[in-house]
């Protein structure tokens, strides 16, 4: 068991999807929702909910962030009120990946009157439940669809038991950060390959541009950048898989490393392509936009760097 059952396999898949820029709802259903259910759910809930997701029969997603786009669970304001059976959810979530198409919603909420990590829990409900209002957002990255979801007294079930508090959610977000880091290094590798291929093809001043030191050295730096980020992403996946106590910190490290690398590599890939790389018909911009969106999705690099420092005890962490 442990945090990372199947983490390495999961990350091999996300890396490939990042490389090929596949738009399947894998991240929302498997990386986010299924992990949340695995981390928080009772055995009964797991066996009721997971098969449908695994078979692809149902799509699911996890709703954490709210309108302020804050990824720190302590910022969650959506309220769950206990009723006869289950809970009523009131509030708004945003930046919910595939939230407009998901059949099942896993929602992070807090008990009325609680604050910080106290009183946080995960809930599940059908996306078509009464009191659920979904709106597709216009996202820069056409390959990662986002939705805003408003809850007006929508009826939901508690996932697992309430005294687990924030831990299952935090663990899910850390796992997702590792999976995303691996997706990003896949994309970064694709940008490096594309840049190098073009540099070998494109001729200016009677030479392939790849024979100019300016381009050669740029590509060498991209290679180093990508190799380093890959090492971080792979290491974090391994650490989670073996439940190394360091693994949550490694999630922050990998996410920060991969974010910077992916964006730099995508930008350099456009630069090496020159004007053509800035055109719509050249696909490079799709990876660039994915890199941009991945940079802030699940938290910006500086957020993860600060978390890393706190988890390493460099400063007194208010985080955990």
């Amino acid at each position, binding site marked *: 068991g442990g945090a990372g059952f199947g983490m390495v396999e999961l990350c091999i898949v996300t890396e490939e999807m990042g490389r090929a820029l596949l738009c399947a709802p894998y991240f929302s259903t498997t990386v986010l929702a299924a992990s949340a259910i695995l981390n928080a759910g009772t055995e009964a809930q797991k066996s009721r909910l997971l098969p449908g997701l695994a078979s692809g029969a149902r799509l699911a997603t996890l709703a954490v962030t709210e309108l302020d786009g*804050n990824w720190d669970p302590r910022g969650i304001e959506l309220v769950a009120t206990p009723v006869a059976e289950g809970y009523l959810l009131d509030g708004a979530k945003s930046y919910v990946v595939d939230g407009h198409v998901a059949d099942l919603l896993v929602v992070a909420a807090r008990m009325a009157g609680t604050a910080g990590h106290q009183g946080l829990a995960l809930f599940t409900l059908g996306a078509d439940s009464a009191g659920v209002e979904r709106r597709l957002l216009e996202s820069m990255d056409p390959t990662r669809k986002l939705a805003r979801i408003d809850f007006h007294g929508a009826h939901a079930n508690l996932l697992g038991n309430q005294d687990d508090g924030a831990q299952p959610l935090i663990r899910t977000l850390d796992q997702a950060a590792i999976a995303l880091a691996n997706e990003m290094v896949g994309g970064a590798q694709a940008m490096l390959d594309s840049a190098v291929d073009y540099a070998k093809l494109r001729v*200016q001043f009677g030479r392939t541009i790849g024979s100019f030191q300016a381009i050669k050295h740029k590509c060498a730096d991209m290679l180093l950048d990508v190799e380093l980020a890959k090492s971080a992403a792979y290491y974090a996946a391994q650490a989670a898989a073996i439940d190394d106590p360091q693994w949550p910190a490694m999630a922050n490290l990998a996410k920060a490393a991969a974010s910077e690398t992916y964006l730099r590599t995508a930008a350099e890939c*456009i630069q090496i392509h020159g004007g053509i790389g800035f055109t719509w018909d050249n696909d490079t911009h799709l990876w660039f936009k994915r890199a941009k969106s991945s940079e802030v999705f699940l938290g910006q690099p500086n957020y993860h760097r600060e978390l890393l420092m706190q988890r390493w005890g460099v400063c007194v962490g208010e985080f955990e």
Partner: protein
Amino acid sequence: MMSKISETEVRAEVRAWLAANWDPELSLAAWRNKLADSGWGMPQWPEAWYGRGLPMSLVRVVDEEFAAVGAVSAAKSGVRHLAAATLLEHGSDLQKKKFLRRILTGEDSWCQLFSEPGSGSDLAGATTRADLNGDNWIVNGQKVWTTSAHHADHGLLLARTDWDAPKHEGLSYFVIDIKQPGVDVQPLKQMNGHASFNQVFFTDALVPAENLVGGVGDGWKVAMTTLAHERRGADGLSSPPRRGSRTGRIHAEERAELETANQPYTWYPQRAGRVDLVIERAKETGANKDPVVRQEIAKLMIMAKSAEWTARRARAAQQQGRPQGPEGSLGKLAASNVARAAARVHTLITGTEAMLTGSASPRDGIIAEILVSVPAISIAGGTDEIQRNILAERVLGLPKEPRSDTGPFRNVRKN
């Protein structure tokens, strides 16, 4: 003394002429034909060609008088003024006669046909061909990154006329009629959704022999004139603010003209990173409370301010007579660094919302447009790599690299 007197004279003369002729109810074309006939539209041009042969120092005086009464100037926007400058320097009398008047009346618009898919950084590597057949040159090939070709009447065309000459010596320069069957103009959509440029395809397009500008094989030399004026234009010598009301038929027509002219450029401020928005955004989002964000804002502002003052120092040096030289590349390179840094800081400030675009996203989508437009600034108008070569070779005097594109162009490796 001399110039002092003639300044007074000029001022009196233009003032009198404006008093007698300026009428906001005229059509734009009618008014500008008066400007052409009188020479007041382009006073620095020779008297023989719609001008009055005045030195630039006195042109300022004329501008001031036009501004004082709110009179509309000759058409100056876009490639138009590059065409005029190039034709004045290298064109035949016939060409000047054919084109100059309708340039300054604004009745014709122009585009520049230099860049090709295969020759971006390496402009002189153009492979669009022009072959003389009787009284006409037959043009075949493709150009790209052409602004406003879709409503241009004429194009400034750089094409290869000799494949056995070395790269720079086999090019010739033409004025080509865009509105002919052999010319196909297609819009080119960019990653930020705008389509500010065109691709232009030539299939046996015709150029009358009389439209060759300069001699056969002089194309590169003539193109250098066009590019020099383009660079100078980039400095943006602005006219004094116009006084007087903006009502009247002529102003409506002028506004329409300007709108068309500026349409391709609406995203250019975003391409430059919109440093002007950074501090406002930090305050409105509360990001200014984060010392880490403040450091990044400070780094950006220090770079941007220093770049601004560097440009100012360069202009001051020019006003002391030093010609605008390769230092231009300093500004170009600085602009790239500033824009990239600004995009980073805007992301840092905007956070998760940076995943959104369109009117519902921050600042009606302006922030999103910054993020997807900045990659163009280090490419358009000469990549950062080209700018570094220019600075290293022409400012620092470092040696050129061994060339691989000498000898007959036919034998030079191409795309």
